[in-house]
């Protein structure tokens, strides 16, 4: 980028000390579809709305929740294409770690590396920050973990969190419903109820996506029929 006309950073400070581009990125996240995550004693669940622009879209081709390693999964709120770039970079970093140490990457390390990438895009020439916040769910030797990573590159560990359109209602709901000794199945039910709170229209296995990881340490995205089963349990 050295020779380019745009070798200076496009993300610059405002007089009030804010990075306006990051604020705008957070706005993009805030107008994205709601997603949430809950950490249970024996696992983690992440979920998101999957509102498609038209009924003609083949919903089986769309997958918002993706795995970064066999034991770490991620969901986003905001711009889908930006999240794809981050997923690709994170997967590569996880594999590089494995290649060096022959050990699966700890969740905190992967989150830190991903956050570092996001921060780089706030301080490099000619690029803009990512318009996504990520919720990373994983299970490693330290147990189940849930992290949120923002466009600025800051990351936080959460017991339960939400992002996107309905964030304030969802977080309020989670604050009321969350208990420290929640098991994974309870957490999935709570996640569904939280999504239902702000859902416009009829919730079904085809317009939400749920990913879970339990103590067997395999991250799995539930199939639409499995989601339907949980939905019926909630009714």
């Amino acid at each position: 980028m050295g020779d380019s006309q745009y070798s200076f950073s496009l993300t610059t400070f405002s007089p009030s000390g804010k990075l306006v581009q990051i604020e705008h990125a957070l706005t993009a996240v805030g107008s994205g579809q709601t997603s949430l995550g809950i950490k249970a004693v024996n696992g983690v669940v992440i979920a998101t709305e999957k509102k498609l622009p038209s009924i003609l879209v083949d919903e089986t081709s769309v997958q918002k929740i993706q795995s970064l390693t066999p034991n770490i999964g991620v969901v986003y709120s905001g711009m889908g294409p930006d999240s794809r770039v981050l997923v690709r970079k994170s997967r590569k970093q996880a594999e590089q770690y494995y290649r060096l140490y022959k050990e699966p990457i700890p969740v905190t390390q992967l989150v830190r590396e991903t956050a570092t990438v996001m921060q780089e895009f706030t301080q490099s020439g000619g690029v803009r920050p990512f318009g996504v916040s990520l919720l990373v769910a994983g299970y490693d030797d330290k147990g189940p973990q849930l992290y949120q990573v923002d466009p600025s590159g800051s990351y936080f560990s959460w017991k339960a969190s939400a992002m996107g359109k309905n964030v304030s209602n969802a977080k309020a709901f989670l604050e009321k419903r969350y208990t420290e000794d929640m098991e994974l199945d309870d957490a999935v039910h709570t996640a569904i109820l939280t999504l239902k709170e702000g859902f416009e229209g009829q919730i079904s296995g085809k317009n939400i996506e749920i990913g879970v990881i339990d103590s067997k340490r395999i991250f799995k995205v539930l199939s639409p029929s499995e989601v339907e089963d949980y939905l019926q349990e909630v009714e």
Partner: protein
Amino acid sequence: MRRKALAFDHFLHLNVGKCSNFGSGVIFEYNGSALVAMVGKNCFAIASDRRLGVQLQTIATDFQKIYRIHHTLFIGLAGLATDTQTLYQRLVFRHKLYHLREERDMKPETFASLVSAVLYEKRFGPYFCQPVIAGLGDDDKPFICTMDSIGAKELAKDFVVAGTASESLYGACESMFKPDMEAEELFETISQALISSVDRDCLSGWGGHVYLVTPTEVTERILKGRMD
């Protein structure tokens, strides 16, 4: 412009005609070393000789070849002394950063993978070292391995050897080793194996340095052998 003659100049004639170009095996025999690691019952021992030589001249008799990475992980390095020292510095650097980032010590298996990767990075201009790695892994299970100078790992359940005395060491260990030895017996066995092997190798010797590691303590002992 001729420099003044220095004390060791009369040794220069020893290098004339002696492998002035270092072919593949000979560089490993420049300084001389003997290294062995053995597994016992919930413990391990790692031992080395103490000689540092320049071909057949002995320069030091207290040269350290076994280094501590953390309290239950040791690496012994055989081969060209300058490379072993540099490699050790690089590995300690990597482990310190790992410890700061991950807030934990490296498991021996992980460290072995790291050493292998570091060595292979220099595949076409390698470090002339042969490492011996010994540590206590999960549940205090002893782990030993060795690798060649470009990182080919060799895991073993009983013992691993390296250095100019390696062939003698293989023989001595094979006959003296028993599985599941307790700490004291392991110490005796590894010491006997080391001393008898270095006595048959002119490039290693001048005593021995043995580390005996159990989950609760690390014992370091110096052995006296034939001082030649």
